[in-house]
């Protein structure tokens, strides 16, 4: 509690416990293609937060109402290595939300050209599986996971498919990408807007808004969280800040 009070006191003076500005991200470190067995992969570290996204391509039956489109499935695991509170077992509510927010950012922005992933209409399409594995949790999992997933997708290759078999290790080309949404989560603490919270900052936030911004400026998904409300002005200013920060993050792609 003393720590929490200290964080709040500093914020009142527009200061943060690690010396950052309110709208400043921690250092971001990106490694691409770290998993040879995956069709695409990326590891993103934002400060001490450490996330791996791996992409597997599998043959699936398409959904009946989109018979000529590939499928996208996103899964997040809060591996128990990553935080003392993470326990083995089925995905928690938070892991489920994380996977769905990342998924929507990518899906709703039409990042992947799913129509190019159809092999036999109504019968066989490529399934793109995004698996997010948290290695260390020090806050801002949504932005780190979204970024890792996007970069992994951008580096994903489609394997050869011959005689009803996937030939792993041989590729016919890259995953066709149409758009690159960047997710930025802005939090409100007291009357301040803050980005890229550490875990201990997250423990004192009032509300957060996660915004996926496309390269053309379109907003493609939003999710509000936290135990307090936000007014229209808050939302507007938080989207502004998210849009601004998304441009900075975009340079990392």
């Amino acid at each position: 509690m003393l720590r929490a009070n200290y964080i709040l006191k500093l914020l009142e003076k527009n200061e943060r416990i690690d010396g950052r500005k309110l709208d400043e991200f921690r250092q971001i470190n990106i490694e691409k293609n770290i998993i040879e067995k995956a069709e695409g992969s990326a590891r993103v570290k934002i400060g001490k937060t450490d996330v791996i996204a791996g992409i597997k391509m599998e043959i699936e039956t398409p959904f009946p109402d989109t018979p000529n489109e590939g499928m996208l499935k996103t899964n997040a695991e809060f591996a128990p290595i990553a935080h003392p509170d993470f326990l083995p077992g089925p995905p928690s509510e938070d892991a489920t939300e994380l996977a769905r927010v990342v998924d929507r950012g990518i899906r709703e922005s039409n990042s992947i050209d799913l129509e190019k992933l159809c092999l036999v209409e109504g019968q066989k399409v490529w399934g793109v599986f995004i698996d997010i594995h948290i290695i260390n949790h020090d806050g801002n999992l949504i932005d780190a996971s979204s970024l890792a997933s996007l970069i992994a997708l951008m580096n994903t290759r489609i394997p050869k498919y011959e005689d009803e078999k996937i030939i792993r290790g041989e590729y016919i080309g890259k995953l066709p990408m149409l758009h690159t949404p960047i997710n930025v989560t802005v939090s409100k603490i007291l009357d301040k807007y803050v980005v890229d919270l550490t875990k201990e900052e997250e423990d004192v936030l009032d509300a957060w808004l996660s915004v996926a911004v496309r390269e053309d400026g379109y907003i493609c998904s939003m999710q509000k969280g936290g135990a307090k409300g936000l007014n229209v002005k808050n939302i507007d200013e938080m989207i502004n800040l998210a849009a601004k920060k998304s441009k900075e993050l975009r340079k990392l792609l």
Partner: protein
Amino acid sequence: MAKIKGIELIKDGKRLDGRKPLQIRDVEMKVGIIPNANGSAMVRFGKTIAVAAVYGPRLLLPKHLQEGDKAIIQCRYNMAPFSTDDRVKPGSSRREIEISKVIRQAFEPVLFLENYPKTTIDIYIEIIQADGSTRVTSINAASLALADAGVPMKDLVVALSGGKINGTLILDLNGLEDNNSEADMPMAFTANKKEITLLQMDGELKQEEIKKLMTEMFKAGEEIYKMQIKALKDRYSE
């Protein structure tokens, strides 16, 4: 309600069900429909029907789940197997888990949780029929159920969805619109203070469109709020 390629959802300024862009569907609200519950309500937006029941505040067991200084909210949003075109298999899907979470958070800001340490306030929602906008319909039902249960609230919570079809901003998406929209934005807010307690968006919107849509949603929310008040009055004047 399937995704249909190239469907035209708005013609001559009218939506396929005859509504104007900013018109919400026929709404029905009924409070106190479940005698066993501390509070309950049914809310219908068009064909979408949500039933909510509130149990509690009641002692939370087992003990190790209790919070010493406040109540917790437990919320479950569940779709009845017969509520949709294709039967929903019983058991919580990932979608239902996420929606349960955001609905819970939609009420956290308005409840005096610190007044009921070690207890739980259980909000259970059953979607009896689903034709779009089920989570916001659920929130309207839960708001009434909480009021019916006599759980003190800072404000009633009002909810509706907005979106965009064929370039036009609309309110209260039905299932067909939801699955074929350019954007879908559910929102919940406190009736008087206009504090937004749930906000999600999927699709493609410019920031100005979001602002414009919110303005219309607040306006329509006034109407929904009046219906809530009327439904509560009808209950107490029975």
